[in-house]
């Protein structure tokens, strides 16, 4: 165990041990979630303290982010509620440019005195570092938006839904899993509300209210005699929506192959848990895959993670340039490949778009964390690499003068930097369903849901698992498989994409925990696609005996 993990967990109850550390804040009573935060006028005054202090100390630019992060998590297992956690984190982060160099400091003391001290610290850091600065910061221009606001379009605020209703939903889903043969089930609801106020010396005062929600479970089936176990996780996605995502609307359900239920913009957790239990048991006796080449039919809730790792990350400009070389790595998609205008990232049917505005997605905001209005843009068009993802201080390095609006910090406490927008694969233009796609495959594997994932530091070689695997023979699903993982190379893989289902099958995958930066920060991001077919991909068998 890492020492810093221990330090983070120290002082928290045992329930916190299963929480990702980045979700930690200060625990508060449920009703306190509904208390209004600091008034926008007061926030403006406080932000101005930071901006004015920075300018008086010689900063040429400053921004202040006052953040109130309200989270609620509910954890259960089988018939027990393990923990209900309400957290609030409130503070201010101040970023400055002095002597052409960035400086940043944050404090949870949001008072005139606390803000002044933190600003002094940020300027002192910038000045100390400017002595070794060889490449002064250049910011792309941004509009002064004045006083504006933005809110995630939700119809049910999680903060107004009683905890008992949330607990009931999880325990009902757990009971459904146990009734259908599961030995264990863990389930959780993560609900996030970021109330962010941004102000900068460029003349914007932006108030945003952002909501995200993630229902999740893991069902375990055990073969006690043999000492074997298998798990099946949820088919939901984390979303940029309110509690309405859990309504389980019939109109948003899709009939998948082999009795699978797939969900668009509304999730039926109890139904999914029921199916999960049956599939977890089936996995205990499923056939172990024969290694070799297969045509893969990849379901959107699976393909999203492959898009994330093999398209989202390599096209982040800061990685391309080497700013992330010491941690996440660099990229095979170098500047010369973009400039050539003919780098074949994928086959002709592959169109990949970046989008910070997509309704219901995790990445949707009105403005990014350096006050740039968000938008949608092409990354790969007809298979050709056309752009990267860039923010104010780097976009000039690809000869563009407008930030793409994808700057983000995980909290007021952390410095903002370039983060992945939603990156999605456009659906096929012709009418084409999952069943039609399977009918066309002779020797293949249908993979649904996320599993194990790993990719190298320049994003060439990757390996992915999945939640459930089905063998396809001569156009039909013939049974479940286990021990499946596929290995490929990014460019080879996307060039092997031959067909994509139409927009009726379009669904959005997401993750709360995209990690990047040092100290590492998490960011929530979505990836949409329809089911897609990739020919002749190398599949390995991951079964072992210990």
């Amino acid at each position: 165990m890492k020492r810093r993990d221990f330090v983070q967990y120290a002082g928290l109850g045992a329930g916190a041990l299963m929480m990702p550390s980045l979700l930690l804040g200060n625990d508060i009573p449920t009703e306190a979630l509904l208390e209004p935060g600091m008034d926008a006028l007061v926030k403006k005054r406080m932000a101005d303290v930071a901006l004015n202090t920075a300018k008086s100390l010689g900063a040429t630019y400053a921004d202040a982010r006052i953040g109130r992060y309200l989270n609620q998590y509910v954890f259960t297992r089988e018939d027990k509620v393990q923990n209900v956690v309400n957290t609030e984190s409130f503070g201010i982060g101040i970023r400055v440019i002095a002597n052409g160099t960035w400086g940043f400091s944050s404090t949870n003391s949001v008072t005139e005195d606390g803000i002044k001290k933190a600003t002094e610290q940020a300027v002192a850091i910038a000045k100390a570092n400017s002595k070794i600065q060889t490449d002064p910061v250049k910011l792309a221009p941004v509009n002064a938006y004045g006083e504006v606001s933005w809110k995630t379009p939700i119809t049910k605020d999680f903060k107004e839904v009683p905890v008992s209703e949330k607990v009931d939903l999880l325990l009902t889903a757990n009971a459904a899993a146990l009734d259908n043969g599961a030995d264990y089930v863990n389930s959780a609801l993560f609900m996030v509300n970021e109330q962010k106020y941004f102000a900068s010396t460029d003349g914007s005062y932006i108030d945003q209210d952002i909501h995200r929600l993630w229902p999740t479970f893991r069902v375990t089936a055990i073969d006690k005699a043999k000492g074997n176990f298998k798990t099946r996780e949820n088919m939901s996605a984390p979303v940029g929506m309110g509690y309405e995502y859990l309504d389980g609307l019939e109109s948003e359900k899709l009939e998948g192959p082999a009795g699978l239920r797939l969900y668009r913009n509304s999730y039926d957790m109890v139904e999914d848990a029921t199916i999960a239990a049956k599939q977890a048991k089936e996995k205990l006796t499923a056939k172990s895959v024969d290694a070799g080449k297969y045509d893969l039919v990849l379901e959107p809730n699976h393909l999203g993670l492959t898009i994330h790792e093999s398209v989202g990350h390599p096209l982040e400009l800061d990685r391309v340039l080497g700013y992330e070389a010491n941690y996440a790595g660099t990229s095979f998609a170098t500047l010369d490949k973009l400039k050539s205008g003919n780098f074949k990232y994928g086959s002709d049917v592959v169109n990949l778009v970046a989008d910070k505005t997509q309704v219901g997605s995790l990445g949707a905001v009105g403005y990014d964390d350096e006050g740039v209005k968000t938008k949608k843009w092409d990354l790969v068009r007809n298979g050709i690499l056309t752009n990267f993802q860039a923010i104010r201080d780097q976009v000039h390095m690809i000869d563009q003068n407008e930030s793409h609006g994808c700057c983000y910090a995980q909290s007021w406490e952390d410095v903002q930097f370039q983060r992945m927008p939603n990156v999605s694969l456009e659906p096929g233009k012709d009418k084409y369903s999952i069943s039609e796609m399977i009918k066309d495959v002779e020797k293949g594997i249908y993979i649904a849901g996320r599993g194990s994932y790993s990719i190298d530091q320049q994003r060439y070689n990757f390996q992915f698992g999945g939640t459930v695997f089905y063998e396809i023979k001569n156009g039909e699903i013939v049974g479940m498989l286990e021990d499946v993982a596929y290995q490929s190379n990014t460019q080879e893989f996307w060039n092997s994409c031959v067909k994509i289902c139409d927009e009726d099958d379009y669904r959005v995958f997401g993750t709360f925990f995209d990690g990047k930066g040092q100290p590492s920060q998490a960011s929530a991001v979505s990836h949409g696609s329809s089911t897609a077919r990739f020919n002749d991909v190398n599949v390995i068998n991951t079964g072992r005996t210990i």
Partner: protein
Amino acid sequence: MAIYTKEEARKILEKALSFSKADTCEINLNGSNSGNIRYARNTVSTSGYSSNQSLAVQSSFGKKSGTATIDEFDDASLEKVVRRAEELANLSPENPEFMEPLGPQIYDESISFSEATANITPEYRAKVASSGIVPAAAQDVTAAGFFNDSAGFSAMINSKGLFAYNKSTNTDFTVTMRTNDGTGSGWVSRDFNDVTKFDADEASKTAIDKAVLSREAKAIEPGKYTVILEPAAASDLLRNMFRSLDARSADEGRSFMSAADGANKLGQKIVDERVNIWSDPLNSEVPTSPWNYAGQPLKKTTWLENGVVKNLAYDRFWAKEKGVEPVPYPSNVIMAGGDQSLEDLIKGTKKGILVTRLWYIRSVDPQTLLYTGLTRDGTFYIENGQIKYPVKNFRFNESPIIMLNNLETLGKQVRIDGNLIPYMKIRDFTFTSLSDAV
């Protein structure tokens, strides 16, 4: 923010506890200051400073608990936070696994704090960055690195008479050096409680040398190879194994420590008999707090002895269910090593691969602890006792259990990520494909 002394912390905690009307009450007080510098492309990029403190109260009536937190410590604020925790406890469902707070405990004297680390300045951090950037630029190499320092304290009190206090410091440093032709990459990691043990010049030079040595790697066939794992490479796989040492998952049949017919592997030999692993908060190289979040004392604990599982971690609830003493999770990992240096291990290798580190390690199968990932930042082919040439990176699919059964030789220990891990030579390590990544 000040790092409170034991007496200052006790005073605040006793005051807060005096407001409690619950059946039981436990209060934690934490604070930390941390600063960092980041550099890339041979220049400084972002850096920052953060200061935070908070007090958390857990109040319980029977098996119903509530928690509330505050960051102001005047009397009125302390009373408010205790009342809030009590209100929340009254509204909460009963937790059938609730355990009453522990009574008074005796803790060892901690050695995890260094005054020098607590006094680090922005100028010192800039100097660390500079010690990599200047020599890198002189050798046609580009530096990207990160240095982080933190100083903090933790204290707790409860209505059963327990009081605990600890302060600790830490520094973490990593740097990646890449040759400007894009064909070579080297990396080092260093971490210490006491910054006076850190030599930024030496660390940066090691990474530069490795980058230059790793230029223009050759591709060799993936397959099973004898490998020498540097401690950073071995540590990542072992750390994942340590996260799965929980007795409850093993007893429930859902861990690599589960055995057939509902048993667990306690007492079974699972790896080579030369494998000995323990934890010890008072080890002078990797000191940690002598108590954990629940107020349990942390003592030297043996996990694997001569390849046999000697302990699994039991939380207080599961220990009670099973009628055994609780065994807290380790706060560090120490694996016994041998006398051989890296050079000795290379000399004694007829044919093998030297691995600097592993990257993007993810679980493939929790049943067998199979992990996948890749080599990174310095992978070399060894023949007849010498490094012959750098090789392209590999993807591996391997289990630490299989790896520790295929142990050839243990080398010297090195501190990595707060743990002490030896160099190790392993036979038949499974590489499944090649990567073009540098």
